[in-house]
Structures are given as C-alpha cells and as structure tokens.
C-alpha cells in the first residue's frame, strides 16, 4: 500500500516537472488553445449536434421535442434508395483505388523528371484539381448534354447515336466516375511525384549500374521508397469518395430516378431538402462511424507498416 503510494508520489512530480518545463509550457499554452477551440467549435460540437438530431423527428424549425429513439436509423436502413447510395459510394471507392491511383502512379513515373516540357504537362494534369467542384460539374454537364454537348457532337461526326449519359441509369455512374478520375488523379499524381523526387538519385543509379531492369527498379526500389505517399493517397481517396457530393449535384442531382446518389447526396436530398433533419442526422452518424472504422482499421494495417 505504502509502496504504491510512494511510487506514485515520486513519479507524479517527475511527470509534472516534465510538462511544467517552461520551454515546452509556453508554446503549449500559446498554440494549443486556438486549434483546440476551433476543433471543438467547428468539429466536435456540430458532430454532437448532428448525432442528437438523429434521435428526434425534427423538421428543422423550432425546438426538438419529438424523441423517437432509433426510428430514424430504422427508416434509413429500410429506405429504398439507401442501398443504391451505399453501392454507388463503394463503387466510387473501387474506381478511385483501382483506376485513379494506378493511373496517377503511371503518369507520375513518367513525369518525375525536372524538365520544362514535363512541368507544363504536369500543370495541365493538375489544373482540374484546382477547379471548384461545382464549376467542374457544370462544365461536364455541358460536355455530356445530349442536345448541345460534346458527346453528341462527336457522335454525329462518326455517325453514331450517343446516349444521353446523365439521363441513363446505366451510363450515369460511369460518367460521374470519369469526372472524378479526371478531377482528382492530378492531385494524387502530385503526391507521388513529391515522393519520387525525394528518392536519392544515387540509389537508382547504383541499381542501374548493377543492371537492374527499369520495371524492377520501379517495383523494388521506387514503390517501396514512396510507400508513405501511397498510404496517404489511398486514405484521401477512400475518405474523399465517401464524402463525394458537390460534383454529383450539378451533374445528375442524384438522378435519373435516384440512381446516382452517393451517401452524402442521399443525406441532402432525403434529409435536408425534405426537412427530415432527424433522418439526415442518422445518415450522417452512420457515415461518420463508417469513416472512423475505416480510419482505425487503415491505421492499424498500413500506417504501422510505414513505421517499420
């Protein structure tokens, strides 16, 4: 009993001394509060707020009074378009990982050299990422437009009848995913290029002198050495795909017939626009939990490997 107490008594001041060290205390008091306050006000409180909506039947007007327990969650799960929204979001994740990232990697391997012409091409690929999502959506809406767009014009030129892609249940998701890949692969390309440029050129040269083939250099030297960049970009891809919203709204608005909703456009359409904020709150809580679970698993699986 006494030993435990005394050991605690010894370690506590020691720990305290470490934190009370004037050198670290000043920056701590100076720099932590602003970030902490912003985080609490802009992230934690709204999160708690949204989570609390989800237990009420609430139109958004006036105080929340009608407590309904888990009814909203039940309504979401049994909603006839929720499955479509989840499937579409998973589809976007799959395309991001299987098409967008390999494409970004391939392009970055080709464009890693520091030359004037390469720089121009790189900037061209990066431009879509700098464009606002709504603007990009509107531009592509015109491209796809079945009456005045580029697709029917091309179709006319080669004498082929082109579908109204955004009005077609089959074509609408491929069309949206093309825009996603076009818009975001430049961002991932930049992450990879930054990683590739940090590889010391001696390593590559040494390998080359040893007669290692080009593909083998990529496979055994370049990819392992930019593993950290890949882990980050995969993570951005997944979370970005789950939160996809502002490209879809101008392109298809979730249509035709609610076939191109993502989880977030579903939330907006059936929760916010229908004045069912409880329902919307339930969707957002579920999405949040999904994001947290993915983050935790991902950290366990991949960020730890980065440390090794």
């Amino acid at each position, binding site marked *: 009993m006494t030993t435990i107490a005394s050991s605690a008594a010894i370690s506590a001041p020691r720990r305290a001394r470490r934190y009370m060290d004037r050198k670290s205390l000043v920056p701590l008091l100076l720099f932590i509060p602003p970030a902490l306050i912003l985080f609490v006000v802009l992230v934690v409180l709204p999160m708690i707020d949204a989570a609390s909506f989800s237990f009420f039947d609430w*139109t*958004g*007007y*006036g105080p929340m009074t009608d407590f309904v327990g888990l009814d909203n969650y039940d309504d979401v799960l049994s909603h*006839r378009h929720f499955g479509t929204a989840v499937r579409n979001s998973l589809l976007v994740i799959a395309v991001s990982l299987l098409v967008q990232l390999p494409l970004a990697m391939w392009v970055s391997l080709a464009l890693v050299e520091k030359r004037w012409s390469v720089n121009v091409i790189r900037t061209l690929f990066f431009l879509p990422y700098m464009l606002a999502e709504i603007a990009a959506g509107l531009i592509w809406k015109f491209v*796809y*437009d*079945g*009456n005045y767009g580029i697709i029917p014009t091309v179709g006319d030129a080669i004498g082929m009848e082109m579908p*109204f*892609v*955004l*009005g*077609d*249940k089959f074509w*609408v998701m491929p069309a949206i995913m093309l825009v996603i890949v076009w818009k975001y692969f430049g961002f991932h390309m930049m992450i990879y290029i930054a990683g590739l440029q940090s590889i010391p050129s001696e390593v590559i040269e040494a390998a080359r002198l040893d007669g290692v083939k080009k593909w083998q250099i990529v496979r055994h030297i370049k990819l392992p050495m930019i593993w950290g960049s890949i882990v980050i970009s995969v993570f951005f891809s997944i979370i970005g795909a789950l939160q996809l919203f502002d490209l879809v709204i101008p392109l*298809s*608005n979730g*249509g*035709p*017939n*609610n076939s191109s909703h993502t989880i977030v456009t579903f939330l907006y359409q*059936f929760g*916010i*626009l*229908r*004045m*069912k904020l409880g329902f919307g709150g339930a969707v957002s809580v579920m999405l949040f939990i999904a994001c947290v679970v993915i983050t935790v698993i991902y950290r366990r699986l991949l960020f730890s490997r980065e440390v090794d």
Partner: protein
Amino acid sequence: MKKLALAAMLSVAAIFPAAAQEVVDWMHIASIPEEVALMEAAVAEYEAANPDVKINMQFLENEAFKAKLTTLLQSDAAPDIFYSWGGGVLTEQAAAGVLRPVEDLVDPAVAEALGSGGMSAFTRDGHIYGLPQQVSEVVLWYNKALFEQAGVDPASLETWEGFLAAIQTFKDAGITPLAVGAKDKWPAHFWWSKLVVRLAGQDAFDAARKGENGGFAAEPFVKAGEMFLELAALEPFQEGFLAASYGDASGYFGDGKAAMHLMGDWDYGAMKDNSANKQGIPDDQLGILPFPTIEGGAGDPTDTLGGINGWLFHKNASDAAVKFMEWYTSAEVGARFGNAGFFIPIAAGAADGMTNPFKVQIAQSINNAHWHAIFFDQELGPQVGGVVNDISAELAGNALSAEEAAELVEEAAADIR
C-alpha cells in the same frame, strides 16, 4: 466659408435620412431580367415616395432558395419579407414561430381586395402570416406550327384517348410530343397531379389526406399512376428528359422542338428567356389546351391545378415591411406584372386591365374553377410532396409500378398524419 456651410448642410442631409431609414430585407426567386427590372422599378418608386424606407433586394435561384430557407429563417440573416408558395411549408414555418402574425396590422380593405381565397392560403389558425400576390395555373402549352405539321387537331385532345392518339401521331411524324424537366422532378409531378385532380377530385383528395378510404393508396391514385404509365409507355418525352432541368425543358419547348409542355402560366415568360434566341415561340404560334378530361373521373371538368403565391413576414419584420407589401401586392402594382405577362395578380381589379391573351384566358379559368388545387408538392408539405415528386419522375421514366407509387405516397403521408 459659404462653400463649407453648403458642404456641411449637404453632408447632414446625406447622413440624416440614412440614419432614420428603415431597411427591409427582401428575398425572391425571379430570374427573368425584365421581371427583375419591373420589381426594381416598383421598389425604387416606393423608396422615392417613402424616403424613410430602404428595400434591400436579394434574389436566389429557385432550388437554392427552397434549400436554404429553413436555415436562413432561423438565422440573423433572415429576410424580412420573402416569397412563398404557402402550403405545408408555411404550416411548418408558422408552427415553428419564425413568422410574424400580422392580422392586427393589415388594413381590412387590403385583405378584402386580395380576396378571401388568397388570404386564407396565407392564414393558419386564424393568424395571417403573409399577403397573396398572384395566382398561377398549370396548363398544356402547345406549339401550333408543330400541330399543323403533324396534322393534329388541337380539339382532338379533349379526352385522354384523343390525347394519347395525338401523342402517337406526333411520334410517327418524328416530332417530340412532350417536353418535361424530370431532373428537377416537380415538373413531372404536374402530370401525376393533373391526373389525380381529374380522377380523384377535391373530395377524394381531402379524404386521402386525412387517411380515409385507404388514403393515397386508394383506387383513384393507383389509377392516376396507371394512366401516367400508359402515357410513359409511348415514350412521349424528349430524349434525355430525366437529365433535363426545368430550364432545359422550357428552352426545348421554346426552341420549337417539342409539341407540348405541361407547365405553369409563368412559362410564357420563362420559355422565351430559356430559348436559344431569347424570343421563344411567337404569340400567334402559341396556344393553351385544357388538360384532357377522363371518362369516369370524379373531378369537376373546371378544376384547375396551380398556386396562390405571395409573401411572408419573418418574425423580425417591421411594420414598414408590412406597409410596403400592402402596396406591392395591390392591384396597381400587380397590373404591371400582369400586363407584361409575368404573372396573374390576385388583387381585385388588377387582372381586368391585362392585355396578354394567355394570362387573361388562364385568369378566367381559375375564376371559374370549382377547385383550384394547390401544387401537391407544396400543399402536402416537403416530406410527402418530396415523395410525390420522386414517384412522378419515376413513373415518367417507367421505373415504378402504379401500386408501388401510390403505396409510397401513402406511407409518407401516414408518417406525418
């Protein structure tokens, strides 16, 4: 010295009215430049006559307005006076206490001029929350030139059978029979609503709302879905109609590419504005057809579908805002918009001087209506109305059965009953 005194006087004169000025924030959805210009002129005129009032005009796009309003009205940035379709949304707003009851303030003469029907559309539980300004009706606009080209007699569209036959004739002639903006969904819901007005009529609609006789899953509502599917099976809409917004469809009709467009009377101006050449269909080529009658339908043939739109007062609205609206909704101001063909003013006498033949015809049909049904997506409130819009777009795309459609509306309606 003289100069200095003059400057001082001027600056006092400049500051003083500004300090005493009452600012009224206004929010509307008008987007047609000529209509906005008329509004601005009216506001400028009022400001000149009432130097102590400043109207701060703001405009939002239709869909954005509807989406933002809930949050906006509960924030510090809430407009004092804003456009409204009445209906279920107004009921929610009134119940939440974000509106100002003005029954003690409104001049009885003004209320009388606006008519009891119009006033009751903006009254909840005995409290007046706004003033009506205009009535609207959904009609079947048609392009005379295309009818001639296909050899279709407009009179043959009086019945549903005749209407379907005409659709087929247009298809055979290679002309798109109908334009619809199904991406926005509400344009498609006019078809379902008109069929319900014809098949169910006022009594069955009111009964369904209360949940009697199976509510919205009752026979006339299923029948409306079946007839909508019957129409959709002919593929009467323009290519890509599911991706077309209201503006796209309106422009498509205005460009003379579709024979008919089931749309509100406002499309007269919007169709011109949305067309490629900004002229639209010339007046002598444009016509209005009543919605086809359906044999055995319980609705009265004179029944109309449309809206009674007006302005609501936010709870922070000043007396000056109400006074301004009394003037703005008056016959004198309304007639200007009526004559220009933008809307049909509701104030007594305002429509008398209207010269636009289409608006005159529509005003008469509303006056003679046994039942002027309010847009279902507004009347039923956002929760049920949203589902009505959903199923309508799906029926137009032939993606849902009539029974399922009726069931879904009933489900949503039962939820809030």
